[in-house]
């Protein structure tokens, strides 16, 4: 690599004064002895001059006023206070409505839903006890067809038709243990 090839990439930094001192000195020494690189440097400077010429001046008349007109206007204290109170009122109304609705739902639940639920639950418990009692009684000796029909109808236990049609077999579910019981008598 010739010295010109080494120096040439540094000419940009040299013309801008952006090289470190040792590089500046090296380029300056080379330029003093190399007309070719010196002409490149002159042409680089000329390019800059041309660009500054063509850039001209910008039309900045009224620029500041345009910017200022676009800036958000500060809200007066009175307006800020009013908007705060409006917001507060809106929130107060919404809060009151929410509390009223909650109280109404609570009262409705206490007065109507809860007693009704109690009745239903008691009825369900009674039904369940009856089913279990019936199933147990049936297991201990009542006619098979009647036993299966009772379980199916009252406890909604899962009993397949196949099983119900087979004599001597009983199937019922135990809701307490979530188990299905299949009762088959010993064959003797």
């Amino acid at each position, binding site marked *: 690599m010739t010295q010109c090839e080494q120096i040439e990439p540094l000419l940009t930094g040299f013309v801008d004064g952006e090289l470190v001192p040792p590089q500046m000195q090296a380029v300056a020494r080379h330029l003093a002895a190399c007309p070719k690189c010196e002409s490149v440097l002159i042409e680089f400077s000329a390019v800059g001059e041309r660009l500054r010429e063509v*850039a001209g001046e910008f039309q900045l008349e009224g620029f500041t006023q345009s910017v200022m007109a676009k800036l958000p206007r*500060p809200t007066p204290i009175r307006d800020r206070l009013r908007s705060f109170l409006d917001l507060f009122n809106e929130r107060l109304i919404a809060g009151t409505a929410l509390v009223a609705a909650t109280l109404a739902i609570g009262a409705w639940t206490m007065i109507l839903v809860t007693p009704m639920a109690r009745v239903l639950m008691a009825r369900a418990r009674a039904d369940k006890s009856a089913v279990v009692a019936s199933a147990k009684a049936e297991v201990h000796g009542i006619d098979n067809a009647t036993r299966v029909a009772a379980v199916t109808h009252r406890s909604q236990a899962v009993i397949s038709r196949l099983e119900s049609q087979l004599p001597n077999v009983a199937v019922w579910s135990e809701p307490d243990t979530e188990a299905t019981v299949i009762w088959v008598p010993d064959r003797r």
Partner: protein
Amino acid sequence: MKLATSGELDESGLIERARKGDREAFGTLVERYQRRVVGVAFSVVHNQEDALEIAQEAFVKAFANLKQFESRASFSTWLHRITANLSIDFRRREGRHSVLRGEDAEREMEKIPSGRGDSFKDAERGEINQRLRKALDELTPEHRTVILLREVEGLSYDEISAIVDCPRGTIMSRLHYARTRLRSLLKDLGPSNDAM
């Protein structure tokens, strides 16, 4: 609107007042930096009308975000960075990777005041400007931006590096490429009257 004159207040004082919502103080900052901010926008979008609009938007954005500005940093660099980001977004949005060709370039050139009365020189200058504009259009947006920021706006490599978010070495190599390319494209123009 009465604005404080340039230099009347120090920059940090103006920024502090503007931060508290003092519009007059911010107006002084706008007066102080408008030329450079428009120049930075122009370096990226390469169109004066767009540059003016972007510069206004940059000032409005700066005012809205003054609380986020850290006083230790340079206000001008922060402002230029906002401007460059808006300009780059604009360029992407508008797809203006190679703007001002043909008639558009000529129309834009006519808007640039020559400031001289000699019609022959004006015509000559117009032709040179046109050649230079075309040569600039030959560059990529990245190369054009750095050469304009350096040569027209006079920014240092560190400032350009902060604005376009590139390492200093990349700035130097982009500048070198841009200068070499423009030098080759404008070789037959001869020396600039002002330069020589």
